[in-house]
């Protein structure tokens, strides 16, 4: 459907307010002590196992943040990195983080340094383990492939936005026998992670990672709010499928009028300048 949404329409505004309201309400409820229960996310429990394995074998952990710049996806990957780094610090393991974006680079270094400091082992942090490789996709991939092989990493965690290089990183890790956990909202790369990794975190589970790993009330509440948001979307779909079916029945199956009306409604914004 060809919708013009350069600016929010009334529908968009109401929907986003509703979704944000649901999420915020559950966050504050959880902070107020109503800690909810969430289901297990299998891949995430494997992270601890992966770091433990690195310690046993005396080999490093690799953590790739994907190709994203400073956006929501990469921030979530950094949150997971924080958890991995604290575990690694606790067990005195190394975490190698190849970075693709110069803006992300200092943030990554700080996340790692803080994690080692928080576990009381600041001396274990090696600045050389956070490496800016390249901002070019395949130069980055070749570098990561080299690191995985040379360091013979014990486990490899791939979190963030990935593109065609996903399978290069995952298959290289598989070849050195690393335990691999991947998570990405880049849906088209998930099949390759499923094929080459031990555990893959799919779709929205990616955003549930920090809640599951930290059991922090804010995150748990947020997750429940997200569930309510999905119910709201599902309800919208079910109701509108009903409306569309009714339209189809009463208009002899001709749906153009329905689409026109729908487009008009979805784009409608009171107070917008004339001439649209």
């Amino acid at each position, binding site marked *: *459907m*060809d*919708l013009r*949404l350069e600016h*929010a329409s009334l529908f*968009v505004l109401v929907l*986003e307010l509703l979704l944000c309201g649901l999420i915020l309400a559950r966050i504050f409820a959880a902070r107020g002590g109503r800690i909810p*229960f*969430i*289901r297990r996310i299998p891949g995430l429990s494997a992270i601890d196992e992966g770091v433990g394995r690195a310690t046993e074998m005396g080999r490093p952990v690799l953590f790739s943040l994907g190709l994203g710049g*400073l*956006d*929501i996806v990469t*921030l979530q990957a950094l949150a997971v990195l924080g958890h991995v780094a604290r575990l690694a610090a606790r067990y005195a393991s190394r975490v190698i983080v190849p970075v693709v974006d110069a*803006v992300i680079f*200092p*943030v990554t*270094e*700080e996340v790692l340094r803080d994690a080692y400091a928080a576990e009381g082992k600041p001396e274990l942090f090696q600045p050389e383990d956070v490496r800016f490789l*390249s*901002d*070019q996709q*395949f*130069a980055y991939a*070749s*570098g990561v*492939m*080299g690191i995985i*092989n*040379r360091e013979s990493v014990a486990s490899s965690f791939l979190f963030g936005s990935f593109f065609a290089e996903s399978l290069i990183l995952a298959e290289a890790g598989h070849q050195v026998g690393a335990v691999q956990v991947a998570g990405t909202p880049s849906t*088209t790369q*998930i*099949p*390759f992670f499923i*094929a080459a990794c031990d555990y893959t975190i799919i*779709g929205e*589970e990616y955003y*549930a990672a920090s809640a599951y790993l930290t059991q922090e009330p804010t995150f748990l509440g947020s*997750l*429940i709010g*997200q*569930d309510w948001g*999905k119910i709201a*979307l*599902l309800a*919208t*779909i*079910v109701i*509108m*499928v009903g*409306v*569309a*079916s009714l339209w*189809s*029945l009463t208009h*002899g*199956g001709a749906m153009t009028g329905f689409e026109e009306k*729908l*487009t008009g409604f*979805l784009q409608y914004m009171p107070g917008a300048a004339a001439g649209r």
Partner: protein
Amino acid sequence: MNLDLAIWALAALSTLAIFSILYRENPVYRLFEHIFIGLATGYGISILWTQVLLPNWWTPMAGDGKWPWIFALVVGLMFYTIYTPRYAWMSRLLMATLMGMSAGIFFQGFARLYIPQLAASFLPLVQPEPPYVLFRNLVIVVTIVTVMTYFFFSFEHRSKVVRGSASLGRWLLMIAFGAIFGSTVMARMALLTYRIWYLLQGRPEIGT
């Protein structure tokens, strides 16, 4: 020396060096990996200057006399305070502002990405649509509903309906992932075919 021949020879050597990692990591791969990263960095620098900083910053400032653009450099320098614990907070302030901006941008992105898709899911499920259209619509709606229930984090254990829907959703998801995998194979094979052809030709008249 013939430049085209030199280019062909270098390109063939590069290809073999990269492919050598398929056997095992080795000094030749390592050398070319470092050359590649060096070239990419150099390429990045020249692109950064010619396509980003020169037209967007230097020319407006030094050419068109818009001197306040120098403040962009001052702000940019705040990144580098990260190396001094005393001033590191400045870099964090800059970073936090950028994060806030990307959060704000997501509110726009959400609407533009997902609202049209939401609207496209409002499909009729009853007559007098032709049967194959109805079947298609039914599959689309059922897939959307069941896959979305798979991603519920709190309801799964309470209701049998949700559990059933979620596992159907996961099955449909796997079919979709398989289809993506299959549809990518040909494009990847075409890439390799051309690389091998390039090597086999042994002559420099073909593009890299």
